[in-house]
């Protein structure tokens, strides 16, 4: 046996580096008070413990650095870890924070849209849903006519139209808008490649999570929405707004 890593010509390589993109919650800190941060984080987690458990998290320091000079990043990371988050990045910090973060093994994310390393995903690995048209066509609208079941994921490079239900435990994502004409019980993420102008339209909103361009609401935030009434969701000044149609 040769030790040449390329010798297994007939087989798949043991590894592939693929570009991908994820939606990661962002923790925006407005005040540098470690106790308060810990308390309020505990409160948030208590509202949806399973949802947040071991969830990755990026900490946004943009506001803090304007009022605080000596930030203890290690203490911050310890707090979020204590609440079962996994810190995977900071953003909006000063150069000294970036250095400190890197020393702690935490990467630095860029804040501005244009600098954001936003590689276009080649192909998202999902429980494939039988599809009616090629997945690779950019900006194509994808139409799904059958129910999307728990455990399934659907990704559309353009708009996504679902004529059936979206079950709890499933996830639909689109780079553009999302329309759901059945009951939406799963997760729906629109504008996933950074399109803050995208919207979600839905005839019966009972979602586990809805998100536009990474700004999201969880089911607990939707308690005031009457089920069965058509709604649209869009971003207004960085807030996710829900309006009856």
């Amino acid at each position: 046996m040769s030790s040449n890593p390329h010798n297994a010509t007939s087989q798949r390589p043991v590894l592939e580096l693929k570009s991908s993109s994820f939606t990661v919650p962002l923790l925006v800190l407005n005040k540098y008070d470690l106790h308060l941060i810990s308390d309020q984080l505990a409160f948030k987690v208590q509202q949806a413990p399973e949802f947040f458990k071991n969830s990755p998290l990026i900490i946004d320091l943009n506001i803090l650095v304007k009022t605080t000079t000596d930030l203890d990043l290690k203490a911050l990371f310890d707090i979020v870890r204590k609440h079962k988050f996994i810190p995977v990045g900071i953003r909006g910090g000063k150069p000294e924070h970036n250095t400190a973060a890197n020393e702690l093994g935490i990467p630095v994310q860029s804040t501005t849209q244009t600098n954001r390393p936003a590689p276009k995903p080649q192909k998202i690995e999902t429980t494939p849903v039988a599809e009616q048209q090629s997945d690779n066509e950019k900006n194509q609208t994808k139409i799904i006519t059958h129910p999307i079941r728990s455990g399934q994921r659907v990704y559309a490079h353009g708009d996504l139209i679902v004529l059936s239900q979206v079950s709890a435990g499933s996830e639909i994502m689109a780079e553009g808008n999302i329309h759901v004409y059945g009951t939406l019980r799963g997760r729906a993420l629109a504008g996933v490649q950074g399109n803050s102008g995208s919207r979600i339209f839905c005839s019966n909103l009972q979602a586990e999570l809805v998100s536009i361009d990474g700004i999201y609401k969880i089911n607990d935030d939707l308690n005031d929405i009457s089920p069965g009434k058509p709604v649209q969701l869009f971003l207004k000044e960085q807030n996710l707004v829900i309006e009856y149609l």
Partner: protein
Amino acid sequence: MARIIVVTSGKGGVGKTTTSAAIAMGLAKRGHKTAVIDFDVGLRNLDLIMGCERRVVYDFINVINEEASLNQALIKDKRCNQLYILPASQTRDKDALTLEGVGKVLDELSKTFKYIVCDSPAGIEKGAHLAMYYADDAFVVTNPEVASVRDSDRMLGILSSKSRRAEQGKDPIKEYLLLSRYSPKRVNLGEMLSVDDVQEILSLHLLGVIPESQSVLNASNSGTPVILDEQSDAGKAYNDIVARYLGEDVPHRFINEEKKGLFSKLFGSK
């Protein structure tokens, strides 16, 4: 060409084996040559429910490994000459089942049988995947409680994406809902989901509701598929299900609480 039916659920203990035995017997009794296969390697339950556990010589794995022929392994039912049972192995581990091996056995059975009923193990792992992979129809057995409904939904996702039909771009597997262990009384008390609640979540074609019934326990203790107990509510429910599956228009029953007649009110009979 045989029609391959998988009886599946995701969640364990919901009544898959009870259902497999009943519908296989029901189809056979109507004159269709039927084989029922136990995919639950390591547990071997079906032969007990069918009452043929003392006649097992060879099993499904022996056939896959070509240690026995299909004819040697198939057990002919003593009550109905159109029904054959292919038991699972109690001693082998689950890895003995392979996609190719299962395909080969199903192909061979397809030549002479009209229906092949596959009793799936619980879960969504390999055993369950192999049981559903070649299916034409899926009987999704669900109990009226949230965890079971959720698991069925998940199984439906797998049926629509990971079956041979999905992979070859053929017509999808036909999916049917069998709501089992249903108790209208407990539904009315708010302790169980109703048929409508379940349908709201799954939106599936309802093949039938099987009531919670002591007759199921009695039947499995005596090794008789419950469908042969024609007086029992569960037996009737399974008979209806087989009839509907074969295209007969049979009204649904066992959905609403039975109104006690004056006679039984006065004399307290069951």
